[in-house]
């Protein structure tokens, strides 16, 4: 998962004016459908779809299904594997237990 979101891949995906504009639009508001994103653009639906999938591939855009339609939204938070999550929980325990130590020893 880390590889998927590696900075080099994210920046490569953003190194395109169309995709940058899509990310900019999605980062400003609610999830949008492909039809909404195509509106007012000179690009075809297929082209927009292709660009969205590239952004999705590097993990900065995700799609959510709403009825029969997919909506795309900006997704800056990391999705992590269970193993990474466990490391995160483990760190939180370390912090909590050091607060406990300070609390009972004061």
């Amino acid at each position, binding site marked *: 998962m880390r590889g998927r979101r590696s900075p080099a891949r994210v920046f490569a995906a*953003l190194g395109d004016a169309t995709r940058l504009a899509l990310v900019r639009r999605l980062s400003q508001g609610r999830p949008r459908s492909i039809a909404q994103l195509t509106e007012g653009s000179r690009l075809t639906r297929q082209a927009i779809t292709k660009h969205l999938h590239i952004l999705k591939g590097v993990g900065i855009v995700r799609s959510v299904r709403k009825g029969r339609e997919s909506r795309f939204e900006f997704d800056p938070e990391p999705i992590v594997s269970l*193993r*990474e*999550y466990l490391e995160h929980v483990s760190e939180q*325990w370390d912090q*909590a237990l050091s*607060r*406990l130590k300070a609390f*009972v020893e004061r």
Partner: protein
Amino acid sequence: MKTDRIEKRIELDAPVSRVWRALTDHREFGEWFRVKLDGPFVPGQVSRGYITYPGYEHVQWYAVVQKMELERLFSFTWPHPKSLEKTDLPQDYSKEPMTLVEFRLEKTANGTLLVVTESGFDKLPENRRLEAFRSNESGWTEQMKNIDAYLSQKATTA
């Protein structure tokens, strides 16, 4: 690291009775754990409250107290929602997969050995969405401003 459990051991320079109180008195627990609890811990009962840890204040505390064996063992189960993002939080925590947290206390020459285990992670779904850390979030906001400035500059020159 094993993927189904976490174990922590910590030596505390305080008597077992003191540590026991810090763990099982809900106000004391709340102080170091950073949670505001509605009421005392009672075995077999649900404990509710709100996290007071900065950045997680929108997250509810929910646990089911399991065992309270005086000055020996305190345990509870608690949920691990797939996401802690404000918009994705579960309506009903009791339906989430839970892990078991156990605090075991042992008297030592200098005080107390506390062993904390959390187990049952193998029951959780494989991928997790972590709470967006503030720094990360503001980093992105900043980046988006830069991109925005860049694009509008480009639009004027084009």
